[in-house]
């Protein structure tokens, strides 16, 4: 088989393997932590820095493999040439979408601009701008997926 094809296939496999390994590690840490908590350690941490580092450390070779294959692909010029070729679809292409009537478009734009500015000013006075600031500077941990 062509070495470029081999490299591309290897890269695809290693990317999926890396992702799957990290996902399985996260789920494993979680299940292990839950079981430990259920055993009467209500305050025990499910994840710890050490566990996370160990999981990443276990698969460092997969990171390295991905990087190595990327370098080899660049060196040998291996890439999926098919991605540059035009697709057959859509078969029913009929040309660019007709532009809206410029006069009407201008009026709509002016209305939207006026609405936007009025809303922003109203928002500054009704406290909704303050809400944005508060939520952005005092983050709730659950909202960013921490827990």
């Amino acid at each position: 088989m062509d070495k470029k094809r081999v490299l591309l296939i290897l890269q695809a496999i290693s990317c999926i393997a890396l992702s799957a390994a990290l996902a399985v590690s996260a789920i494993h840490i979680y299940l292990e932590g839950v079981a430990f908590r259920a055993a009467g350690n209500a305050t025990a941490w499910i994840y710890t820095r050490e566990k996370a580092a160990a999981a990443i450390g276990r698969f460092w070779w997969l990171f390295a493999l991905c990087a190595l294959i990327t370098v080899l692909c660049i060196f040998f010029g291996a890439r999926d040439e098919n991605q540059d070729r035009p697709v057959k679809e859509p078969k029913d292409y009929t040309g660019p979408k007709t532009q809206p009537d410029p006069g009407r478009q201008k009026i709509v734009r002016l209305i939207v601009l006026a609405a936007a500015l009025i809303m922003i000013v109203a928002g500054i006075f009704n406290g909704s701008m303050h809400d944005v600031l508060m939520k952005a500077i005092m983050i709730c941990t659950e909202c960013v997926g921490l827990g």
Partner: protein
Amino acid sequence: MPNSETRTETVKTLQWDKIRPTKRRLIQLYAALLYNAHLRGFVDGEIFQGKSKALCVPGFNCYSCPGAIGACPLGSLQNALAASGRHAGFYMYGILLLFGLTLGRTICGWICPLGLIQELLYKVPTYKLKKNRITHALTYLKYVLLAVFVIAIPLWHGLREGMAVPGFCKYICPAGTLEGAVGLLSNPKNADYFAMLGPLFTRKFVIMLIIGTACVFIYRSFCRFLCPLGAIYGMFCRIALTGVRVNEDLCTHCGACVRTCQMDVHHVGDHECIHCGKCMNKCPQKAISLKAGQITLMAPEVPAKAAAAGAAAPAAAGSSPDQTKKRSVILWSAALAVLACALIWFNFLDPSLKSQAMEPAAVAESTESAAVSSEDTEEAAESTAEIGYEIGNQLADFSLECLDGSTFRLADTRGKVVFLNLWATYCGPCVKELPHFDEFDKTHDDVVVLAVHSQFVTDDVPQFLEGRDLGLTFAIDTPDNLVWNITGGNSTLPQTIVLNRRGEVIYNQRGSVTPELLESLYQQASE
């Protein structure tokens, strides 16, 4: 040997042409850096708390990222919808209308950091999946996500329970996981954040991995199939001032633009088009250009031969290559000057950068008051622990006026187990756990629970608590963050601090608590 030298030079130029970053890539990098100009946040492990966060950035960039200097438009929209019971979120609606009208989905193609990450992942050399009927059908998924996670969930919880639950941020957003959660967790100073990780993080982490892997094989898969912000901006495709435009006089309707585009477009400039401008050079008629109103921002490249023969691209008409180059240099210089100013301001000069830590005077005062109180209380005299907020430290004394008019003095609680809960009305999990504290407080006589609201107030707190039937003692932190400073509170909520009967800290964690955890902490504090 001049021929061999010329050949070598030509080869070098060709190689450089292959790898050199395009103008669009440079602008994407510039935008990502500008949105995250608070670089010291990555070192300190703290998010930026300046006033600039009242402004939204146009692209997808989580405001929990340690570097973020502006708010995420999608997160802010969800919070605005959640607050609909109090007041309409006009500000966010106005901002989105303005971004949509002026830039539309040009934002996705040029100034979205998440778009940049997806394109970089797609650079990983492997087999790629091209657009087809299935990918086209999947593009409608983002409208479902917009309706359910961005609009329905926040509105439902906001109107029914008065709680902010940003559905998309909480359950899906890979930017929140990557920039916010992983961004904060990767800093060793935030080691205690690991304490709050559980099912939510596991789920979101796996979702992030799936989306990231998909981006390696499918061009901008998140952007095309899942991004609700792109769905919103796509609605402005007919009126957006900036975007790619087709000169219909030149167009022969060959369809090369659509067939070579990696997005699921049906027409140049439709709701799926991110206006990246790649089609400009694919068009054999050179009929496509990037425009802002009547101004041409970018025109198709003219091949060297054609240029030499005197042919000019549509935009080049009226401006010589020298003039274009000069204009480009001026624009880039101005952009770099803006970036330099932003980096200096957001890392060194912004007033919010004053240390969040307790100031020496405040520490001294608190220590002194703790010493005075220890003379009065026999139990406290037993504790010789250092003043601080780490486990094993004795928490500095403070007094705070409560919402019921009474005064809470920490020194008066010696001999009891104290639970301090740091919360805010705009924090969904904080509101959700208040009944747990209330129930716990009612069932334990030797426990004192004080729920301290952040000094940043968006609601009338007493009014918010009305009708919730909570018997807890509530207070609002002082404007100089007295309780936050004493307890080591920062920009993440909720936080719970538990003191044993001697006033020593036995627990100080961010994240939600459960009734079981409260009971377990009580047992631990009573030992």
